[in-house]
């Protein structure tokens, strides 16, 4: 019995994994993320321009000017003093500087200044010039006060119970990680659902099911298929985790991005996501299995995938509403809706500590719905196994569950 289940599972795994489209799916998510990040970094670099910036200081505020410290000295912009506006304009026209500032004699009273350029100066240039001006305005103060006045303050917002902290207003990597895991699970359940439906409908569509059921029981076939699909998902998950570790290593050690340094992982958040994600995964697979068992062709059942996807990503449409009141009635209600719950709880957990009773209730609801869907799938598969090329509706499936109809369907009469 076991060997037959394994045979089905191995076949399912081989058929789906050893083909180009699977490799494409496997690599698409990390490559897409890498592309988006790379593109973002490229666009960011385009906003910076390391060409010098000039200034004409008739107010006398930048005489014997002290340079402001720059976090990365290689990115320091050079500031060049010009005697007259004409000199600065000539330098701008010759491309020696990207822009210049003019401080008139009345600057001390009015604070008026002028910025002149042909192309918008880079953000780094204007920021560094601001620092340069500020530190020189504070030249009479001790250096540490002048530096603090120039750099300003950095605020960490903390919840009164200390459960959440947002340095500079944003959540740290450790808190965001459960949402990333939630998103990965979401993509995983989408692909698993797709594999499941294709796996079920394939044999019905090409009529091989009539041959297979002569040597494998429906139970063995379903178990083997589910096992194969779980292996496929694990392959995907392992590949994504490896990509994730590589990306984290690069971010921490090569690019030295501070957001990724010394992350404190939110294990409670991870547990919450897994508690909701696992039954949601089985719900998706069971629903796809049910649909696959009822349609005559794979194409007919493809409408369910987008519905699950839309439901799963729907919390992103309400992110402002959830964010404004993460423990409010709307956010709590959305946390209970199948598929939407995964991302909703992920987003809420990023902002506040989600009460455990809500997580348990949501996971319980998803489990009950998933069990219902599995039961329905089993009924649909048994009832529709030999009705090749025919569509089966829900009413027929439910009726097949009643004792009289069940007996008839088991006897091969529908």
């Amino acid at each position, binding site marked *: 019995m076991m060997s037959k289940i394994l045979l089905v599972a191995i076949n399912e795994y081989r058929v789906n994994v050893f083909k180009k489209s699977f490799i494409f799916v496997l690599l698409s998510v990390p490559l897409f993320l890498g592309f988006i990040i790379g*593109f973002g970094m490229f*666009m960011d670099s385009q906003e910076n321009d390391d060409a010098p910036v000039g200034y004409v200081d008739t107010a006398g505020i930048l005489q014997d000017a002290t340079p402001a410290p720059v976090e990365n000295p290689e990115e320091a912009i050079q500031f060049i003093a010009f005697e007259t506006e004409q000199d600065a304009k000539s330098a*701008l026209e010759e491309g020696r500087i990207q822009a210049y*500032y003019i401080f008139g004699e009345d600057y001390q009273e*009015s*604070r*008026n*200044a*002028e*910025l*002149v*350029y*042909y*192309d*918008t100066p880079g953000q780094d240039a204007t920021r560094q010039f*601001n620092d340069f*001006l*500020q530190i020189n*305005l*504070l030249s009479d*103060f001790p250096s*540490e*006060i002048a530096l*603090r*006045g*120039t*750099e*300003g*303050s*950095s*605020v*960490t*917002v*903390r*919840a*009164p119970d200390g459960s*959440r*902290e*947002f340095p500079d*207003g*944003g*959540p740290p990597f450790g808190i965001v990680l459960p949402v990333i895991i939630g998103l990965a699970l979401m993509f995983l359940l989408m692909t698993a659902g797709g594999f499941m439906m294709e796996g079920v409908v394939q044999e019905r569509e090409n009529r091989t099911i009539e041959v297979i059921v002569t040597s494998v029981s429906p139970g063995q076939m379903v178990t083997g298929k589910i096992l194969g699909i779980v292996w496929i998902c694990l392959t995907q998950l392992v590949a994504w985790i490896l990509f994730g570790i590589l990306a984290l290593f690069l971010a921490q050690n090569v690019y030295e991005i501070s957001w990724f340094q010394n992350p404190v992982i939110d294990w409670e958040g991870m547990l919450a996501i897994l508690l909701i994600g696992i039954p949601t995964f089985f719900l998706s697979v069971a629903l796809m299995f049910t649909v696959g068992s009822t349609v005559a*062709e*794979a*194409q007919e059942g493809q*409408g369910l995938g987008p519905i699950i996807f839309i439901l799963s990503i729907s919390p992103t449409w309400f*992110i*402002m509403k*959830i*964010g*404004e009141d*993460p423990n409010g009635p709307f956010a709590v209600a959305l946390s209970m809706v199948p598929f939407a719950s995964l991302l909703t709880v992920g987003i809420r957990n990023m*902002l*506040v500590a989600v009460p455990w009773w809500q997580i348990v209730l949501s996971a319980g609801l998803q489990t009950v719905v998933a069990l219902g869907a599995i039961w329905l799938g089993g009924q649909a598969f048994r009832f529709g196994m030999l009705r090749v090329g025919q569509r089966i509706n829900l009413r027929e499936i439910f009726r097949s569950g009643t004792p009289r109809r069940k007996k008839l369907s088991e006897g091969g009469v529908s």
Partner: protein
Amino acid sequence: MRKIGLILRHEIVTALSRPGYLLFAFGIPLLGLLIFGVVTLIQSNEPDIANLPEANSSSELEVEGYVDHAGIIRTIPGDLPADTLLPYADESLAAQALEGGEISAYYIVPEDYIVSGEFIYVHPNSSPFSSGGKDWVMSWTLLVNMLDGDMELASRIWNPMYLKVTNLDPAPEVDRFTQEDCSKPGQACESNALVQMLPMFAVILFFVFTSVSSGQLLANITKEKQNRMMEVLMLSIDPKEMMAGKIIGLGLVSLLQVAFWVVSMYTMIALGGNTFNLPTDFSIPISVLIWWILLFLLGYAITATLMGGIGALVPNPKVANQGSWIVLLPMMIGYFVAVTPVGQGDPHGLVSTVLSIFPLTAPVVMIMRITIGGVPTWQLVVTVVLMILTAIFIVRAVARMFRAQTILSGQPFSVRRYFLALAGRA
């Protein structure tokens, strides 16, 4: 001709009887209008907060506490209302006061503030999406105190320049320093997200319309091939007539859908200025709506005909889905450019201009540029002429593919075979 009419009518009736089509074409815009109506109704019953006399006064600041471990705060800046900041000796006392409702939040200034620059803001609504925090109050207080209470100098450090900007470029584009422009959709309007994002929404919408409606044509053809309906149809109708009937029929259905969406959007924007907080001088010119529909029709004619060609060659729907990417790829490139800063940030730059004239990417990129405005008329004319010529060429090429022996051959599909067939060499 009568047979084309029959096919056309069949396609229209079939599409209009699909619940999915009705929901997407009419259900979603109607739902949008309904939500918009309810929101407008609710807003009309609420008082206009912005016009209340106390709205802009300093009484907005709630009483907050602070625990100053660094010993910096000796005075509260004179421009803050009295008792805005209350000192506490330690965090537990401040936490008690917060719990008791005496203060709305409190700050902790650590001993090493001067070196680290960090302080903690304990707030009941710590969510970054919340607008409840007023942490600038503490930043300002600390700055004033570090500068020995010199508010004039602190103010100068807080905002060192009132900057006048001079762009010497003879034809300057709107940039982050110059004044924003909210009279038309695009990046130049920073204060209104809807106005800023409208070109992107238009691109997404028309990309979806074009790809879904042309995909529907492909699905219909392959379905009829699979269920052998095609073999029966071939007996009584010329393949070219069948293709023409299908393309025109589904085109009319899609046009109805686009028109309904565009009219709904226009109605909401025209009537909902207050609801969407639109600037008073904002409007979408009727000419833009006409260009949208024209570009959609031409884009549909090209894409759907190319999809029809795939439908003629593929043996089954699964292969059709894999083959459709050849047709959608150029449009996806255009889409990617149009919704990212490459296009949105520089709508009349070289990349955007070239892609908006190239017929296979024009349906999305030109829609983005037209929505933003400022496209020279000659570019519009060239684009439309090129799209019409391309549509004629492709219709002729695909018509050659619609022969019984090609449609019913069952040969495997390949990209090479598709291009050879388009070139008339297969």
